[in-house]
């Protein structure tokens, strides 16, 4: 059973492999320019495990930024993760170190897979979630290490490979629609995302859009609760 679970998880996470290895390598190559040992790139993949934050780290390290500044910038950059937990809290049954590791490894891609896919028949949901997270981190650490180790010797001839990540999110969005059968949250997100991107902010697009989306969802839920017709019909 274990072999076939690994097989299922590998198939589910393969798009992440194609996304994380080139992205991790890009980070590793940038990092190697700083002159540190390549093992530190591995360590960053193991301990930080956050794509955007690690790219940011290269810039901060080069500028010898202060630790408080680094803490605040990293926290703000990753603050979208706050909302991943809100969506997952009722679904995550793991306890102890398993729970710790699942929360630690909650990247955009892991979150997307955990909310869109399920354990195969007869397999414990927690075990499936753990493997997905572990496989994803494995790809990321591999990419970081390879990039820093090979350094400037490699040149990417894989223009366009970065498209796998939006393609993955797209497929997962379609799968979510198949389960939910409500178009409203999708239409809402398209409208909000495009409006924020085009009219408000490029850099903070994701965070601002998430905040507006949550507000709209909560307002909708609140309005439903206070709708007088609903009490009439009860």
């Amino acid at each position: 059973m274990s072999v076939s679970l690994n097989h299922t998880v590998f198939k589910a996470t393969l798009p992440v492999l194609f996304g994380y290895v080139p992205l991790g390598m890009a980070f590793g190559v940038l990092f190697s320019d700083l002159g540190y040992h390549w093992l530190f790139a591995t360590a960053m993949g193991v301990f930080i495990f956050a794509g955007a934050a690690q790219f940011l780290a290269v810039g901060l390290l080069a500028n010898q930024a202060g630790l408080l500044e680094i803490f605040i910038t990293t926290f703000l950059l990753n603050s979208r993760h706050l909302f991943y937990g809100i969506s997952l809290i009722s679904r995550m049954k793991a306890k102890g170190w398993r729970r710790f590791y699942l929360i630690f490894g909650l990247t955009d891609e892991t979150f997307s897979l955990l909310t869109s896919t399920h354990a195969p028949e007869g397999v414990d949901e927690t075990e499936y979630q753990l493997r997905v997270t572990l496989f994803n981190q494995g790809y990321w650490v591999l990419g970081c290490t390879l990039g820093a180790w090979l350094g400037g010797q490699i040149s990417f001839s894989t223009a366009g490979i970065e498209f796998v990540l939006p393609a993955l999110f797209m497929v997962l969005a379609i799968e979510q629609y198949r389960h939910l059968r409500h178009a409203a949250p999708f239409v809402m997100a398209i409208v909000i995302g495009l409006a924020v991107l085009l009219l408000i902010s490029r850099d903070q697009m994701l965070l601002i859009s998430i905040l507006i989306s949550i507000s709209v969802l909560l307002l909708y839920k609140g309005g439903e609760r206070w709708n007088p017709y609903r009490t009439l019909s009860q």
Partner: protein
Amino acid sequence: MESVPYLIAVIAVMTGATFLTRVLPFVLLYKVADHPLLTFLGRFLPPALMVLLVICSFKNEEILSVGFVPELLGLVAVLVLHLLMRNALLSILGGTGCYMLIVQSGVFA
């Protein structure tokens, strides 16, 4: 110049800050995990987040220009493949393949 203690401190600080963003909701909302509002968000927020992550992937592109046609075609390829075959891997790799072909051919450059 590179200083190893500084790098280790930076890694520790970034690890802490990143973990904090991931763990806070679990710590703060643990007691109210079954609240109807959280169940509602748990159901309707992930679809919205998935769409936002697609859009966010292109936040540095000019999405209203001709230069964005390859991305649009790639996304359409993913959508069509997935509606027809419903094989996640095929849709993702097929769509990415289309996108890479278009980009490397330089038609919309």
